[in-house]
């Protein structure tokens, strides 16, 4: 019983990173009604980008995180330009395929630059453990959770309190009407990608920090889990992505406790299928979700 609670707690704390990745996917989907398959790869790429600063000077961990944040934003913009800017919106297959191409490209670039070797990632508070009786809370996981919550609050503030956020919400509801109101849709789309990229960069950095090392092998499982979180939360719904991320994180950790790492991911897929059969709209189907 205590093991179960511990597993749930650890899982939920780590699940905050899945929530961030899920938010990134759902943000792009909400605004452009397209899936950006390269997102998780760009997040991991952003995390690697954070490591670049270590080549120049010995920097504390939080500087690395900041660089990962910035690198994620740059990569997000790059994905927008190569995959969405030039391809006409009437060819959804083409945009999907080109994001898949970018996923492969980013993956391969990472493998080439690092020669396939996993890289150590600096962690903060990894030696801090709070004990409360039988439970222990890892300090670094608490940091992960804390930073993720800060990012989510920042995003929600951006979306609901700024003009850019207003424009983004307008474009996601009715792109043509937004254009008629004078909103530059191209710029809003690009900014959406940059914002999602910033979130992704931080998520990648947090994952690297809590796991201890980064490897390009993280890309595929992260893409799959991020997409699962997005679907369970409801495509286009940010609160849904947050809750689904925590749910998947907790669920995954509990199953790892009982069934081991090898079978853990199978059960996450099963969770997805259960949701698809019983609640295809996800936890929170966004208002006005058409088709």
């Amino acid at each position, binding site marked *: 019983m205590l093991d179960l609670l511990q597993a749930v707690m650890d899982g939920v704390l780590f699940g905050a990173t899945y929530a961030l990745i899920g938010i990134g996917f759902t943000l792009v*989907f909400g605004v452009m009604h*397209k*899936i950006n398959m390269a997102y998780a790869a760009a997040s991991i790429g952003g995390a690697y980008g954070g490591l670049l600063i270590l080549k120049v000077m010995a920097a504390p961990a939080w500087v690395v995180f900041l660089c990962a944040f910035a690198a994620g934003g740059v990569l997000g913009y790059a994905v927008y330009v*190569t*995959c969405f800017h*030039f*391809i*006409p919106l009437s*060819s959804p*297959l*083409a*945009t*999907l*395929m*080109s994001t*898949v*191409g*970018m*996923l*492969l*490209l*980013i*993956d*391969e*670039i990472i493998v*080439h630059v690092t020669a396939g070797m996993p890289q150590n990632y600096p962690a903060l508070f990894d030696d801090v453990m709070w004990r409360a009786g039988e439970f222990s809370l890892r300090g670094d996981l608490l940091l992960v959770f804390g930073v993720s919550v800060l990012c989510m609050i920042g995003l929600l503030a951006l979306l609901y309190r700024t003009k850019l956020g207003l424009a983004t919400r307008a474009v996601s509801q009715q792109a043509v009407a937004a254009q008629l109101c004078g909103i530059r849709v191209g710029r809003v789309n690009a900014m959406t990608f940059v914002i999602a990229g910033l979130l992704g960069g931080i998520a990648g950095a947090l994952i690297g920090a809590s796991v201890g090392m980064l490897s390009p092998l993280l890309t*595929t*499982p992260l*893409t*799959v889990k991020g*997409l*699962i979180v*997005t*679907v369970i939360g409801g*495509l286009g719904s940010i609160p849904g992505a947050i809750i689904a991320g925590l749910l998947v994180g907790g669920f995954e950790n509990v199953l790892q406790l009982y069934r081991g790492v*090898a*079978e853990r*991911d*199978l059960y996450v*897929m*099963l969770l*997805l*299928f259960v949701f*698809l*059969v019983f609640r*295809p709209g996800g936890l929170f189907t966004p208002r006005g979700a058409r*088709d």
Partner: protein
Amino acid sequence: MDFYFGLVQLVGVHTLLGLSAYIVLLTGQVTLAQAGFFAIGAYVAGMLTVLAGWHLVPALGVSALAGAITACAVGFPALRVKGLMLVIATLAFGEGVRLFFFNFDYQIAKGEIKLGPVGGEGFRQIRFFPENGWSTFEVMLFIWAFVVAIMALLWWFDRSRYGAVLRAVGEDEAAAQSVGINLTAVKVSAMTVGGAIAGIGGGLYAHYTTHIEHSSFNVLVATFAIAYPIVGGLSSVFGTLLAVVFVQALLVEGLRDLGDWRNLLFGALIVLAMNLRPRGFLDPQALGSLKRLFGGDRSA
């Protein structure tokens, strides 16, 4: 010469993979599960010929059936939701199949050695072709017999009412539904046919490589499966074939000198191809011009 036969065999198997995705893409659904059905076909056919001693042709029949049944089972829940959910559901399914085979052990001792799939190590010793004395040339012809038959079948579908129904669903679901087409039935049937084709392809793949493991059926293979029809263009079956030849011949042969950089270029090539020709190599305009070129003076 054997090397080129091997290359043609590879092109044949990948064409089957592409064709299995082609028919589902015609209905406008993007499926990343074809690698999963491919894997199921491979393991089923391999186990039947190695462990049960069957001849390859009935084994391929069973693997086609296995692929079809699994595709039908996956199609029903996944197709009740919007198209983009299908991408995610099929991606998850494909990864799930791979993880299943990662954990799958079934060994039978034959004489001194143990045969059968072993989790992470995979399934070795699928030696139907060498044991029965098939030459590389004969294997190539065998594989291509299936490819030609399936291409002919799909080409015939395209010219029949079924093909029109598939493309109608792909173009505009609301319009198709208003004409009385049962969307779910059409989409699930397309998935089932795609699953059967992938099952046959997987069975052939297992026998020509003689060794399969879970990592041979990863997301990259699923990506190849949809890349071929999308890059080749959905207007014609030959587009897929063209894309397979382009990708495999170019990547394997043409860029051989670039060694490790090949994989990098594959991603970049896809991005470039999609930006320059969003509807594929053989898009409707290209197909129209080709028809005019070869079909003489007929008004467009």
